Structures are given as structure tokens and as C-alpha cells.
């Protein structure tokens, strides 16, 4: 009766030697696997294992029963004669028998549990894949981060280089300005002396002078004055560039400033028979250093007179551009400035070349100085072409 129970119990039963040879297999298991019991006896246990189970048997299951004498709840995939896989749970105990050591195993098929396990495994695999993907992304991000760091370092080096170059350029410019300032001073001193002695000669302090000598002395005097003006301009520009100009900014009435400048140019206007009109709203005020503003206006008017042919006209037009800005335009009917020179005229030592060029007069520094002064007071100075002819110089300054 016991033998029958073992044969047909609702679980598989197998006994095998340390060599893995099957000594006994019950009817339940052999039937489930599609074998006659006699077919399996004497064959290796691996016969009924799927390949994964064979390796697992060699690496885990056998060492376990050999070393610990038992194995519990080990999952193994068995293989039927037809090649179908059957998942089974196995408990095993190793015994010493007269015939030698043997391992007895019961196998129980798991179907419902496998479905649950399948779901668990799939969830884990999904999680693993997600983790792997995240890890890959992390590696990518790290790489990008490294690249950005390298680029950032490069940029910083570049920036430092540029900064160093800028500093070097600034220093060179400063040195140039210093040099010009010193040289101008050194030149002015003897020129003033020349001027003084010419005057003394003209006055006849050293004896009577003939008419021809007077004329020569006049010529020397004119050239001395021209040279002196040139040097003063250079000195001014050098001072501005060296940042040594102090501005005494305060509200200034435009009508007053223009009024103070006009008498200075009246003789020239008369000589060239030019007409000058001004349109300045009453009470229009700017924030500026009055002397610097006079200098700018004088320069703009002198230029306008210089480059406007006889019988032409010059116009001063001022007004409010915006809440914070006032404009002052000096418009002439002169030779005008070619389009490509509109910006260049503000560069030092520049004059518009052409048939109307009068290079003997002026240093080519006036506009450069004027623009620097305008900017120094928080404004600007730009040139445009007149609608039909001539030029328009537009000075902007902060509204007072």
C-alpha cells in the first residue's frame, strides 16, 4: 500500500546517486514527463532537466545537497520527452544508503505561482532596463558635463587672453596719450616764445622794421598761431583719451550758450557772406559743462563755415528729442560728406579728401575731440548728409 502511495502520490518523486544517475522515479513524475519509469531508471538526472536547469544543478543544486545535505524550494525547469518545459519546485534530502549516498527529491508542479513570478520577473526586468537606461543617460550627461566644463575652461582662457590684450591695448593707448601730452607741452613752450619775439619785432622794440619785414613777421605769426592751435588740439585729445578731463556738469540754457559762441564766428561769417539762422525754443536747457559745450559748438560752426561756399547758409536747430534728451543740429549747405565717411570724420587726424579739401587748415582733431566731449557729458555727436546738399551734425545731450 505504501509503495502504491509513493507511485501515485500527487507529486513527483526521484532518487539519484552522487553521479546523478536516477535510481528510482515514481509513476506520477514519469507520466507527467511522458516517459515509462523504466526508460528513466539508470539515466542521468539531467535527462529530465532543461539546459538552464542542468547548469543550475551543477553549480547550485548539487553543491547544496552535497554540502548541506538538503535543498528546499528550489525551482527547476524540467523537460518532457516531447521537449515541453514544466516548472517544478523541488525539495531534496541526501541519505546514506547501503548502495551508497542517494538524494531523494519530491517535485511539485507550479503553475499559478509561476504566473505570479512571471509578473514579478517582468516587472524587475522592466525596472532593470529603466535603471540601465538611466545609467546610460547619466553617463551621457556626465560626458556632456565634462565637455561643457572643458569648453568653459577654454572660454575662460580665451577671455583671460582677451582681457590681457585689452589691458595691453589700454596701456599702449595711455602711453600714447601721455607721450602726446608731454610732447605737446614741450612744443608749446618754444612756440609761445616764437610768438612773443615776433610781436616784439613787429612793435619795433629792436629797431624799425620795413614793410616787407612786417609782412614776413605776420606770416611767421600766422604760422606760429596755426601750429599752436594744432598742438592745443592734440593736447586736448590726449587729455580726453587719458581720462584727465573733468566735467563741471550743470543745467545750461541753450540760447545762452549759442549766444556766447556766435560773436566768435561772426567775422568769418561776414567774410564769406554766409547767413546764419537759429531755432532754439525758449527755456531749452541741457545738462552739460558750459565750456565744453561752447567748444563743441564753436568747432561745429567753424567747420560749417569752412566747408560752405560763399553765399551759403548755416542753420542751428535745437529741440527736445525725448523726455531725457535734447538735440542740437548744425546744418550747412556746404560740400557735404560722402556716405562712407560719415563715421570716419570722427576719427582723429581725418579729413574728407577731395577737391574741396583744405588740409592746410585744422588739425583733423576737432570732430574727434567734440565727439569725445559730447560722450563725456553723457551725450553723442553724429553726422548725416543733408537732404539736398551739405551736412548735418547732430549733438545730443541730457535734458536738464
Amino acid at each position, binding site marked *: 500500500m505504501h509503495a502504491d502511495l509513493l507511485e501515485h502520490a500527487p507529486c513527483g518523486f526521484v532518487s539519484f546517486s552522487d553521479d546523478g544517475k536516477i535510481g528510482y522515479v515514481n509513476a506520477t513524475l514519469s507520466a507527467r514527463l511522458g516517459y515509462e519509469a523504466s526508460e528513466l531508471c539508470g539515466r542521468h538526472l539531467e535527462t529530465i532537466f532543461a539546459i538552464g536547469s542542468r547548469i*543550475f544543478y551543477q*553549480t*547550485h543544486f548539487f553543491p547544496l545537497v552535497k554540502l548541506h545535505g538538503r535543498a528546499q524550494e528550489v525551482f527547476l525547469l524540467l523537460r518532457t520527452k516531447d521537449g515541453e518545459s514544466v516548472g517544478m519546485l523541488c525539495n531534496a534530502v541526501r541519505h546514506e544508503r547501503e548502495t551508497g549516498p542517494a538524494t531523494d527529491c519530491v517535485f511539485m508542479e507550479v503553475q499559478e505561482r509561476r504566473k505570479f513570478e512571471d509578473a514579478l520577473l517582468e516587472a524587475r526586468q522592466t525596472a532593470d532596463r529603466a535603471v540601465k537606461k538611466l545609467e546610460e543617460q547619466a553617463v551621457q550627461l556626465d560626458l556632456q558635463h565634462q565637455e561643457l566644463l572643458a569648453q568653459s575652461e577654454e572660454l575662460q582662457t580665451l577671455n583671460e587672453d582677451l582681457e590681457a590684450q585689452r589691458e595691453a591695448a589700454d596701456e599702449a593707448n595711455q602711453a600714447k596719450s601721455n607721450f602726446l601730452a608731454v610732447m605737446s607741452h614741450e612744443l608749446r613752450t618754444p612756440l609761445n616764445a616764437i610768438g612773443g619775439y615776433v610781436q616784439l619785432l613787429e612793435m619795433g622794440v629792436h629797431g624799425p622794421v620795413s614793410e616787407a619785414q612786417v609782412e614776413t613777421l605776420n606770416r611767421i605769426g600766422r604760422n606760429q598761431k596755426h601750429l599752436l592751435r594744432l598742438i592745443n588740439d592734440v593736447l586736448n585729445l590726449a587729455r580726453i583719451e587719458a581720462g584727465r578731463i573733468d566735467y563741471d556738469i550743470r543745467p545750461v540754457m541753450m540760447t545762452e550758450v549759442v549766444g556766447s559762441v556766435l560773436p566768435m564766428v561772426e567775422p568769418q561769417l561776414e567774410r564769406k557772406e554766409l547767413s546764419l539762422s537759429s531755432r532754439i525754443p525758449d527755456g531749452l536747457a541741457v545738462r552739460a559743462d558750459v565750456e565744453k559745450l561752447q567748444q563743441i559748438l564753436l568747432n561745429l560752426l567753424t567747420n560749417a563755415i569752412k566747408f560752405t561756399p560763399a553765399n551759403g547758409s548755416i542753420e542751428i536747430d535745437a529741440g527736445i528729442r525725448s523726455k531725457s534728451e535734447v538735440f542740437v543740429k548744425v546744418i550747412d549747405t556746404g560740400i557735404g560728406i560722402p556716405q562712407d565717411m560719415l563715421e570716419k570724420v570722427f576719427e582723429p587726424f581725418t579729413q574728407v579728401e577731395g577737391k574741396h579739401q583744405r588740409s592746410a587748415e585744422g588739425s583733423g582733431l576737432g570732430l574727434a575731440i567734440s565727439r569725445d566731449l559730447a560722450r563725456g557729458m553723457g551725450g553723442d555727436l553724429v553726422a548725416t548728409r543733408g537732404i539736398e546738399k551739405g551736412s548735418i551734425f547732430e549733438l545730443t545731450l541730457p535734458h536738464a
Partner: protein
Amino acid sequence: MLFAHGFGCDQNMWRFIAPEFENDYRIVLFDYVGSGHSDLGSYDASRYSSLEGYAQDVLDVIHALDLKEVIFVGHSVSSMIGVLAANQEAERFSDLILIGPSPRYINDGSYVGGFERKDIEGLFEMMDRNFIGWANFLAPAIMKNADRPELGEELTESFCSTDPVIARRFAEATFLADNRDDLLQVKVPSLILQCSDDMVAPEQVGHYLKEKLPESTLRIMKATGHCPHMSHPGETVELIRDYLG
């Protein structure tokens, strides 16, 4: 003699063999990190992602004990781990005894390793299913075990591994490895113990190793299976003694 256990086991597997050599040699046994009673805190996923990391374990043991003229006895995957270690510091080794070695488990062209990739995946599935019961299986955080050593104990008792995730990675490092090129570099004489019916390392693999390993001796054992040192300790001891002379 330095005994290195194979995949799926720990140093316990040597208990039928090692005592036999106690009188003649200094015996050194150890567990790889993640196996037996090793310190899980020392596990480093990237180091142990390939067999080189395990070879470093062997060299670490050798340096720690300042071992010289080591007779390295390795089972299964440890054979290749021993080869890698000996290739790094040949001067430390006198002999390599390789039990059931295989430089590559997956067939490759005319090379017969014994398995196709899907077979190896079958093993991974078997491992996954058998480790499902362990609480930390679903989380790849190995260190969890350090807080709950009883889990590791339980697993050690059941599968000689202290952590299913480490065991799983060890399986991948082992069964997906290809160390055929490393064989040619070996400068230490070796004994290959090949079982007569080993489905993990078929006999062709034993002959392949004999051909590629300089100064090697191949002995085909009567023992069957993959663990002759456990199933047939007597024959295993005899062949090792015979080789060592």
C-alpha cells in the same frame, strides 16, 4: 595551496580536498566578495563586472599573506580567474590546478563551448526564479543586505551566496566571458582536470585548453559531472598528488 571556489558556491566546497594536503602545504581558503561569509561592504559593482575583478581578489589574498610559489587550485570559473591572476603576477605562482575549466562557455564558430546563448539565459532565469523569494531581489541595492544580515545568512545556507544580485552578476561575468586569448600568455605550468561527462565543460574544452596552455597536463577523470572535488574527492586528490609529485 590557494583554493578558489567556483560560481554558485563558497570555500566550503573544498572540505573533502583541502584537509588531504594540510600536512604538506600551507592551505589558504577564501570566499570571493559576495559569496560565503564575505564582507558585502567590499562589493564594487564595476570591479566585479568582469573576471579581472575576481582575479584581483586572488592577488589581494596573495599580497595580504605575502604568498609565494602558490599552487593555485581553482574550480570551474576560478580556473580562468587563476589564469588572469597568474598572467598579472606570474612570479607568485608555481602551478595552476584547474578543475573543470572553460575559457568560453558559448559556442563560437568552430570552437565548442557547449552552450548557445539562450542556454545561458536559461540559467539566468533559473537563478532569477530561485532568488525571487529574497526580499532584496527586486532592488539592485546590494548594501541592503548589510542592514539585514539574516537575509544573507539565509541565502548562504540555501545557495552559498550572500546576495542574489551579486550572484546574478557573477553568473554573467562567468558565463559570458571569453578568456581564450589569455591562455596563450600563461607562463605557469598547469594541470587540467577534465571530467568524463561534464555538461558544463565538455571534453572538447579540455583538449582545447591542453592545446592552448603552454606547459599543461590534461587528465581525463573517471568522475562525471562538474564537481569532481565534491562527487569524487578521492580521485581528485590522487590526480593532484600525482601531478605535484
